[in-house]
């Protein structure tokens, strides 16, 4: 029997974007205030999972044609590369650099190399979560 999921699908089309926007907000809030790559990644993954629930896995694969294993590998490499940059400057591993810049529109902004690391973490979290969920979901 096919259930009627018009409501779910209609709501999802809106809610997914709200979740994704919130994920971006949380991601950039990280480091100085609560947030960051891990929780941002989880939120993004939850948005994709919501899409999968409302529609189905093949549809979502068509919308987002990403190999999640490769995504997590790329994220891991970005994270390690950021941490390893400290080797080039001969300071202890994981040492970050930051400074304050006057940017147009934003005004005085703190730019931190931890952001690059967090992008890596974000990609790993999305990649691993989606790999796990897809593996379980396809297993029928």
């Amino acid at each position: 029997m096919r259930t009627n999921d018009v409501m779910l699908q209609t709501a999802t089309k809106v809610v997914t974007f709200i979740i994704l926007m919130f994920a971006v907000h949380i991601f950039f809030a990280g480091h100085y205030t609560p947030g960051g790559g891990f929780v941002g990644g989880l939120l993004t993954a939850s948005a994709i999972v919501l899409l999968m629930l409302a529609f189905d896995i093949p549809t979502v694969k068509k919308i987002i044609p990403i190999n999640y294993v490769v995504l997590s590998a790329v994220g891991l490499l970005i994270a390690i590369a950021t941490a390893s940059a400290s080797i080039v400057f001969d300071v202890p591993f994981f040492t970050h650099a930051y400074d304050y810049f006057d940017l147009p529109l934003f005004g005085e902004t703190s730019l931190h190399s931890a952001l690059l690391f967090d992008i890596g973490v974000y990609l790993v979290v999305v990649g691993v979560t989606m790999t796990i969920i897809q593996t379980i979901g396809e297993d029928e």
Partner: protein
Amino acid sequence: MSNLALFPVVIPLIFAAILMLFPKKLHMQRAVAIGGVAATLASALVLFSKVSNDGVQAVTLGSWPAPFGISMVSDMFSVLLVLSSTIVTLFVLFYSIPTIGVKREQSFYYPAVLFLMTGVNGAFTTGDIFNLFVFIEVLLMASYALIVHGGEKPQLRESIKYLLVNIISSALFVSAVAYLYSVTGTLNMADLAVKIPQIEAVGILTVIAVLFLVVFGFKAAIFPLYFWLPGSYFAPPMAILALFGALLTKVGVYAIMRTYTLFFTMNTGFTHELLAIIAILTILAGCVGALAYFDVKKIIIYNIIIAVGVILFGISQMNAAGVEGSIFYLVHDMLIKAALFLLVGILTVIFGTSDLRKMGGLIKSYPLFGWTFLVAAFGLAGIPPLSGFPGKLLIVQGGFEGTHFWGSLVILATSLLVLLSVVRIFIYAFWGEPVKIVTIDRKHYLSMFVPTAILVALTVFLGAGAELFMPFVSDAGEVLLNPSLYIDAVLKE
């Protein structure tokens, strides 16, 4: 280079991530994996020479001051273990290429091995007890992937047990770390070594020390917590079994050795006495298993448990001879266990079974293989001048100098049982009437035999050249017996 201590941890991680990008390209997978391990070996050798020239290398991540940031510490003991684990992984990789099967190779076998190596080397290097937990989780994740890799029925059955045991012990680990933190207010091992002697509540610290012994005992497979090991290790293919047998339990043994020499020394009358008794019981339990089975894999698996007991008995004596013996024996055991598992692996390929009673008469068709096996068997039992001998000699001497002469007697007596258990394999498989064997072509056989034979040759070199290695071993022992060397290196600023 202030970050040198981290190289053997970071290099396999980078290569593992790269390998995940193209799982299906067989030749690239093999080449990149071997390149990664070789690069790790090179960095470990550089680190080894640095440590032996300049003493303990410590780096605290993120430029935080020492007790607050996570310290990575490479002393002689840890670098020796990093070096031997990397060598073992390299040879096991060579052995896996002809044996593990294309299907496994194309579904993330090599990344999993490299992640395992990241965890093992990290656990040997870290100087922070919570970070030790993290690295043990990293290697456990990789081992979960490896133990179920291929998805055969016995693997699935045994991996559930393995998972349950490890999840429970990990939960205990976190609780034990929390107790320790609530009592001492620090998790940096060097800082713990400073703070613990100042705390008067010895009772609660003793409880925590025993809790840690239980946690690490699960990983190290001590009596009576070894029950999960024989079944779980039996399931995966031989190359994975060799990695597990040579590396995983050794991380638990290392953790016990480190914590019980560096900071859990406030009540040695109780904790180290307990460790000595458990070590002896572990040896006895292992001997029973090693003699009871007619399955070659099971016999060697139970020999892992015996070795764990021998090493821990040495460390429980807390004197120079005992500790140095344990270090030497630990390095020896990593190499010889990997070699024996690979040898037994070839044996099962040739006979098509791992049951001893269905084997026989191989010495006529494979003489060199037979004698290599005999050398490895003698090495395991500790016949001079092979590599098991110097370590065991020192451990026994440590027991006689300490308070546990009866323990030394047990170790001497059980050495004969160990010898019997492995020579039994030799007698059954190589002597007697030849039975029907699987014909394998020469090239395939050599691709399995050559890495194994080199590994056996390495153990012979380790034993015969013990005089050459002893200075490094006593260096390592000195840091364990004088925690102030370790503490000063970490908290120097």
